[in-house]
């Protein structure tokens, strides 16, 4: 009798009655809704996209008609001048938007950080374009960029500057779109940087001032290092967003003139929904995803250290 009582329970108790399993089950049940959601709406499509890379499918016929083509889409992509050209345009766009957007946003935040009057009003004014939809802004700027009667050229004309063909000249069309996007995002950069600046303890500056540090030294040695996590966040988010740019291109130029503003996502859209090459379009999208992932990992690595904690 005593022997039976002392026998190890693990050999006889079914797993579903074990405490560890039941405890785990409770956790899984709580996590189930979000897991089901992610499986159906996130992981499922990602997996389907990865599979679609290896097939030729025109989107109309049943999926059973899709033809297996192996890695030929990947090979094709790396020899596709249009795709590579769109990548060059996207890279140019991302560099300009990130450098100018972050730079000007930071300068603006530094300037506003010292403002004590009408702070709310000034911040709201700068933040206003962020709240407006990109579609509306693109349409509006498209009109403002109109070469002969557009608002911008009219203003330039008043000071004797000849009209600029903002969206018509292939050499400047992409930069014109960058300008609009930077203007629109400026408020966002500013608010995030302001939050980062406010988090820097004032005593750091006071101590530096007592040691005779100049304004530039204070910025270079205190502000910038302590702002590193904020910078990382802003740059990562902006780079990802820039590499995925679509709406302003679709609305303002449709990739033109003469391919000058053709970016990757717009080319993916055309490939999928105008040329009905879903397999190839998916391949291009996956390549873009890999590029974004690699760039993001590099950024995380570069900005890994810094911030307030590095001082303590």
């Amino acid at each position, binding site marked *: 009798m005593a022997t039976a009582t002392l026998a190890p329970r693990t050999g006889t108790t079914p797993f579903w009655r074990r405490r560890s399993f039941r405890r785990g089950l409770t956790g899984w049940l709580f996590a189930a809704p979000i897991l089901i959601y992610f499986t159906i709406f996130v992981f499922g499509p990602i997996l389907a996209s990865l599979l679609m890379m290896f097939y030729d499918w025109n989107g*109309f016929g049943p999926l059973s008609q899709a033809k297996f083509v192996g890695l030929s889409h990947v090979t094709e992509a790396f020899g596709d001048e249009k795709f590579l050209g769109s990548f060059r345009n996207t890279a140019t766009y991302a560099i300009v938007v990130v450098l100018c957007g972050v730079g000007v946003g930071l300068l603006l935040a530094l300037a506003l950080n010292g403002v004590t009057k009408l702070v709310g009003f000034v911040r709201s004014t700068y933040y206003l374009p962020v709240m407006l939809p990109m579609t509306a802004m693109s349409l509006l700027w498209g009109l403002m960029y109109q070469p002969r009667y557009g608002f911008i050229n009219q203003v330039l004309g008043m000071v004797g500057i000849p009209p600029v063909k903002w969206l018509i000249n292939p050499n400047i069309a992409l930069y014109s779109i960058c300008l609009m996007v930077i203007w629109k995002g400026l408020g966002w950069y500013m608010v995030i940087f302001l939050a980062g600046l406010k988090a820097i303890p004032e005593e750091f500056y006071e101590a530096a001032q007592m040691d005779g540090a100049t304004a530039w030294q204070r910025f270079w040695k205190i502000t910038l290092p302590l702002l590193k996590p904020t910078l990382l966040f802003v740059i990562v988010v902006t780079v990802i967003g820039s590499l995925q740019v679509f709406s302003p291109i679709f609305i303002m130029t449709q990739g033109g*003139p003469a*391919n000058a503003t053709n970016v990757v996502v717009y080319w993916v859209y*055309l490939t999928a929904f105008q040329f009905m090459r879903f397999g190839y379009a998916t391949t291009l999208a996956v390549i873009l995803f890999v590029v974004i992932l690699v760039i993001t990992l590099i950024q995380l690595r570069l900005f890994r250290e810094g911030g307030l904690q590095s001082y303590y």
Partner: protein
Amino acid sequence: MKLSRREMLKALGITGVGLTLAACTPAPASEAPAASSSEGGEAAPAAAGTELTIWFHWGGATGERAQELIDTYNSEQGPDDGVSVTIETVPGGEYRQKMTASRMAGTAPDVYHTSIPILELATNEVIRELPDEEQAYVREHYLDSTIERMSFQGKVWGYPTEHQAPALIYRRSMLEAAGVTEIPASAQEIRALAKELTHEADGQKYYGFTQWYDNYPASFHFPGIIWRFGGEMYEFEGDIPRKIMVDTPECAAALGWWRGMVDDGSTQVGDLGFTEAWQQGLAIMGEIEPWFPFINLRDGGAEDVYEDLGVVYVRPAESISPVVQSGGWELVAERNSEHPAESDTFMQWMMHEPGMPFSHFIVEIIGSLPAPLNYPTPIPGWSEAMMDGYAAQTAPITRMHPGLKVLGDGEIGTAISETVQAVMLQQDDVEPALASLQTTLDEILERTDGSRTA
């Protein structure tokens, strides 16, 4: 009552499963759509209240007029047919993606009004051919070029609702003011006159010839201008395109004609869009389909410009037959519709003589050339000049746009547009641009249509 954590989880789980099942369960038979009546040969009478869906792309005022048309069917003919029709508005540029998504989801409409080529819709089994007697009806009652557009593998797959072909439009008052008594009709005459007419007055520049180089017309007009200079863009073997030819002297002459006017400074290229130039009264001549003067001038706030328009077809050199490319939209039935018989009945009401209300809508509201042979004239809302230049002169010389028989037409059109833009913006010269385009188009044609067999 106090629930334990386990009981709470059980209750939530059961509720969740119940809700999921409820959401996924199909509607009971009484709510389900009427069963298909086409498979048994003879069409069964329509179930009372059969609901059909049609895709239209119009919004705004035109959308309202389209709704009135469908309301007329629903109130006058629908009750007899046991059918009620609902419009689903899908912007033209989104047709393909919506078509893909809705067919995958099983929510495709019963009838499409679309401009996607019949070839593409038929080969992908999106649509079904018209019943035999309706195929015969279309062959008997429509213009040849529109019948060809609806045909594939010897069958007729839909009703041609639209028919668009370009002609030269010009401002009569401006030509008169410049002392021009003879309307230019050949490419060379047009270029010379465009240069002569271009001028500045009161700080405004008036453009002798307007070109729509930055959008679809560049590729839509491309085969037509090649024909005008005696060339051919495609070589077909039956229905299948085997060769594409743009690196040719005729094509260089055609594109060179467009570019020459840019070099002359006679166009609005780089200054204004085509539409803006016309709406602002700064355009003197241009070549475009009839929908443009209707939608963008008459109904677009430039009625004075519309009233002042003259229209004439552009004449090629003497040894070349006059011909213009035409394309348009069609009314077709979804292959997987659960109401094929009702869809057919509805489409017949829309397209059959003598009423042919959809043809009237398209011609009088949208401004398309009539596709039916027996369309009554004069057409309400059409000016005399439009009647003469488009309906009398242009319609008889139309030829189906050859791209409509090419699976890779979308990609080909994009490549052509890019090349035309580069040439018109003086980024590239005609010959090298065409040589490069030839390589691109060869690759696209081989990939898209190369493996097609009869």
